C-alpha cells in the first residue's frame, strides 16, 4: 500500500462528502415537483401517454404501474434483440441475439443488473446498444429512484396509504435527473478520449505490420448513464477496463463518483423528506463506515499480492515505479489502489461495471465485492435501491432494539408491527434464498459445472458470485464463468427478476402500510435514530444478517482459497 494510494481513496471520500448535500437538494426538488423547467414537455408526454399526473396512487396501484411498465419495456427489448439483423444501425450485420441470451439480457437490463453473457463488440448492433440497452440504463435507474421515493413518502406521510405517482416519478427522474447529468458526464468522458461515433470498425496496420481492428461506437453516451444509473453494462466486453470506455485516471475518478453521488445525495434528500436530517446523516455514516472497511480490506489484499506469483519471480513490493501487488487483470494507469477502490464502489452500489477483473483478484480482495453485494447493496447502494434496502435494514434494527427493551418499536413516529416486519423479513429472505438455492443447484448439476473457468474453491466462488451479482442486480462478474449457455442464461435471468420484482412488492407493501399509520408522538421509550449507538447497531444488524446467511458458503469459497494460497497450492 502506498501513501499516494491512500491519498486517492481519501480524496474520493472527501469529494463524496462534499457533493452529498447539493446533490441531495437537487434530488429533493426533482421528486417533490418544484424543479420542473421542462413542464410543458412533461405535460405533452403525459397527455400522449394517457397519464393523470395528479393521481396519488395506492401502493398496490403504484406496484402495478411499475410491474406493467417493466414487463412492457422488457418485452420490447426482447423483440428488438431477436430482430436486430433486420433493424437499422447494424453496420457489421450482427445476427439476431439467440433466444436464451435475449431473454437474459432483456431481464438483466430491465432490472438494472446489466449482467452480460455476451461480448458487446461482437454481439450487439449500435441500434440495440442505444435504443434498448442505454434506454434501460435510464429507465431502470429512474424506476429504482421512484421506488425509493415512494417508500420515503410512505414513511413521511400520515394516515394516507398513498405513496405518489409512478409515472410522474419515472418521467421526472429521467428528464431532470439522469438526462442532464448524463449529457454533461458523457462530454467530460469524450474530452478525455472515450469514443462517440457511428463508424465502421477501423483496421489499423501496426508498427510491426500486423492488422489490428479498432472497435468503434457511441460509447460515451452509454458510459455516462452506465455509471449514473448504477447499471454497469459495458459497451465492450472488458467494460471500464477498456481504454475506450475509461481512458484516464480522471475518467476513472469521475466514474466512481458518478456511481455514488445520486445514492449518497438521496440519503440527504431522505432526511429532508422525513424532516430528520440527523437521522439521514447517521445512515450516511453507517454506509460510509462499511464502505471504508471494504476498500481498506480490498486494498490491503491486492497490494499484498499473491505469494504464489511472488515465488515465480514477480516483485509484489510497490515502489515509485513498480505497481507491485497483484496486477493480474488490472490496468497500469489505474494501479492497485484505484482497482480496489473501483471494485468496492461498484459492488457497494448495484453498478457492476469493473475497471479490473474481479475473477483474478486475490481471494480476500475478491471476497470484498462479493460480501458487499451479499449485504444487500445497502452501502450507498444502487440508485434508489440502496436507500430502500437500507431502510428495510433500519426497520429491522429498530425492531430488534425494541425487542431488547421490550417496547413496541416505532420508527419516525410510526409503530412497527407484525405486518411491517413480515414485509421487511420477506424482503430480507427472498434475497439469500435466490442466491443460495441457485448456487447450490449449480454446483451439483453437470450443466452448472460445465461453465467453470477455474477449479478448486475458486470455481465455487465463481458460481456464488454469479448468482449473488444477478440477484443483487449488480452485474459484475467473476467473468471466467461461461454464462452463455441455456442453463446459465435461464437461471441467471430468473435470478435478476427475482432479485428485483419479488423484493419490490413487499418493499412497496411496507411503504403502503407505513403510510397508513398515524403518527405517534415521540416518548422517552423511543429508540433514538440519530446517535452513534444507532449507527453501531445498524452496522451490526447488516453484518450479522449477512454473515449468518452467507458465511458457510464464503468459508468454502474465498476463505479456503486464501488459506490454500498461503500454502502455495494450485488447481
Amino acid at each position, binding site marked *: 500500500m502506498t501513501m499516494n494510494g491512500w491519498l486517492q481513496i481519501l480524496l474520493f471520500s472527501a469529494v463524496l462528502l462534499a457533493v452529498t448535500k447539493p446533490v441531495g437538494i437537487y434530488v429533493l426538488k426533482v421528486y417533490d415537483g418544484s424543479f420542473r423547467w421542462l413542464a410543458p414537455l412533461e405535460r405533452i*408526454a403525459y397527455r400522449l401517454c394517457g397519464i393523470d399526473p395528479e393521481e396519488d396512487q395506492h401502493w398496490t396501484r403504484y406496484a402495478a404501474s411499475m410491474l406493467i411498465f417493466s414487463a412492457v419495456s422488457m418485452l420490447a427489448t426482447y423483440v428488438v434483440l431477436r430482430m436486430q439483423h433486420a433493424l437499422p444501425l447494424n453496420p457489421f450485420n450482427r445476427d439476431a441475439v439467440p433466444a436464451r441470451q435475449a431473454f437474459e439480457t432483456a431481464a438483466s437490463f430491465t432490472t438494472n443488473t446489466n449482467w452480460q453473457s455476451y461480448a458487446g463488440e461482437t454481439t450487439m448492433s449500435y441500434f440495440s446498444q442505444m435504443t434498448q440497452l442505454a434506454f434501460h440504463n435510464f429507465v431502470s435507474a429512474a424506476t429504482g429512484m421512484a421506488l425509493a421515493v415512494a417508500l420515503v413518502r410512505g414513511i413521511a406521510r400520515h394516515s394516507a396509504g398513498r405513496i405518489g405517482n409512478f409515472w410522474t416519478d419515472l418521467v421526472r427522474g429521467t428528464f431532470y435527473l439522469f438526462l442532464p447529468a448524463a449529457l454533461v458526464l458523457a462530454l467530460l468522458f469524450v474530452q478525455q478520449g472515450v469514443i462517440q461515433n457511428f463508424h465502421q470498425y477501423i483496421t489499423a*496496420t501496426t508498427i510491426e505490420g500486423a492488422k489490428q*481492428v479498432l*472497435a468503434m461506437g457511441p460509447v460515451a453516451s452509454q458510459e455516462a448513464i452506465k455509471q449514473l444509473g448504477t447499471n454497469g453494462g459495458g459497451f465492450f466486453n472488458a467494460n471500464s477496463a477498456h481504454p475506450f470506455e475509461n481512458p484516464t485516471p480522471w475518467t476513472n475518478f469521475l466514474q466512481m463518483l458518478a456511481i455514488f453521488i445520486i445514492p449518497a445525495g438521496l440519503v440527504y434528500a431522505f432526511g429532508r423528506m422525513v424532516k430528520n436530517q440527523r437521522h439521514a446523516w447517521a445512515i450516511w455514516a453507517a454506509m460510509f463506515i462499511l464502505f471504508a472497511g471494504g476498500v481498506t480490506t480490498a486494498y490491503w489484499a491486492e497490494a499484498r499480492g499473491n505469494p504464489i506469483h511472488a515465488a515465480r519471480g514477480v516483485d509484489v513490493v510497490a515502489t515509485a515505479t513498480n505497481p507491485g501487488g497483484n496486477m493480474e*487483470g488490472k490496468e497500469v494507469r489505474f494501479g492497485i489502489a484505484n482497482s480496489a477502490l473501483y471494485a468496492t464502489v461498484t459492488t457497494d452500489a448495484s453498478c457492476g461495471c469493473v475497471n479490473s477483473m474481479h475473477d483474478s483478484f486475490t481471494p480476500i480482495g475478491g471476497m470484498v465485492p462479493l460480501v458487499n453485494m451479499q449485504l444487500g447493496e445497502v452501502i450507498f447502494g444502487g440508485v434508489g435501491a440502496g436507500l430502500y434496502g437500507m431502510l428495510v435494514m433500519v426497520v429491522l434494527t429498530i425492531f430488534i432494539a425494541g425487542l431488547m427493551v421490550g417496547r413496541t418499536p416505532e420508527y419516525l413516529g410510526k409503530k412497527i408491527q407484525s405486518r411491517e416486519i413480515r414485509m421487511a423479513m420477506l424482503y430480507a429472505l427472498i434475497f439469500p434464498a435466490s442466491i443460495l438455492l441457485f448456487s447450490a443447484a449449480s454446483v451439483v448439476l453437470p450443466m452448472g459445472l460445465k461453465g467453470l473457468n477455474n477449479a478448486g474453491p475458486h470455481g465455487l466462488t465463481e458460481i456464488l458470485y454469479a448468482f449473488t451479482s444477478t440477484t443483487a442486480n449488480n452485474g459484475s462478474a467473476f467473468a471466467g464463468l461461461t454464462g452463455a449457455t441455456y442453463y446459465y442464461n435461464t437461471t441467471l435471468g430468473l435470478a435478476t427478476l427475482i432479485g428485483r420484482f419479488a423484493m419490490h412488492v413487499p418493499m412497496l407493501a411496507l411503504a403502503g402500510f407505513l403510510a397508513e399509520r398515524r403518527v405517534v408522538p415521540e416518548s422517552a421509550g423511543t429508540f433514538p435514530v440519530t446517535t452513534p449507538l444507532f449507527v453501531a447497531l445498524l452496522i451490526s444488524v447488516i453484518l450479522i444478517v449477512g454473515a449468518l446467511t452467507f458465511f458457510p458458503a464464503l468459508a468454502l469459497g474465498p476463505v479456503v482459497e486464501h488459506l490454500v494460497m498461503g500454502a502455495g497450492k*494450485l488447481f
Partner: protein
Amino acid sequence: MLRNQIRPALVVTLVLMLITGVAYPAVVTAIAQLVFPRQANGSLINRTNGAVIGSSLIGQSFARPEYFHPRPSAAGNGYDDTLSGGTNKGPTDRKLADTLIAQAVDSAVKNDGATRGHIPSDLVTSSGSGLDPHISPASADLQVARVARVRGASIAAIRALVHQHTEPRQFGILGEGRVNVLLLNMALDSAFRMASHN
C-alpha cells in the same frame, strides 16, 4: 386496475426510448464530433500517407527486440480490440502461475537480464482489458538495455527518451505513473535508426 395501465406503459416505453435511446446519443454525438473530433473518433494515429497505425489509447503487440514490449494480453491472440478481456484466471490457478506468469518471467530473465524476484508486477501479468497501452516506468527501465543494444544507441539516450515519455499521475495525484508503449516506440523509430535495419 391493470387494463388502464397498459396504454401508459406502451406509450411511455416508446416515448422514453426515443428520448433516451435516440435523441440523447444523437445530441452527445453531434457535440462530441464538433468539439472533440479527435477523441470521439478514437484518438487515432496516422502515417503521413493517412493510413492508420493504431490508437494512442489502445495497446498493440510488439515482439521485435528493438522495441519496448507491452504486457501480456488475453484479448484474442494478443491486443485484439474486438475481443477485449482478461485471463479471468484466479489466484490459485495452475495455468496462470506455472504457464502464463512463469513464461513471462522466463522471457524477462532471458531477454532483459531481469533478476527473479525483482520483476515489475505489471510486466508479467495480463491486463483487465487485454489492451493496456501502458507499462510501468520500472517495466520500461528493465527493457532499456536491450533496446539500446539492438539499436546500437547509448543506454543514457534511450533512458532519456523513456523519461520523456513517462506520464506522471494525472493532476499530480490520480492513477499511477506510466509509459505509453506505442508512443514510445514511435518516438524510438524517429529518433534512432536501427543498427541493422532489414
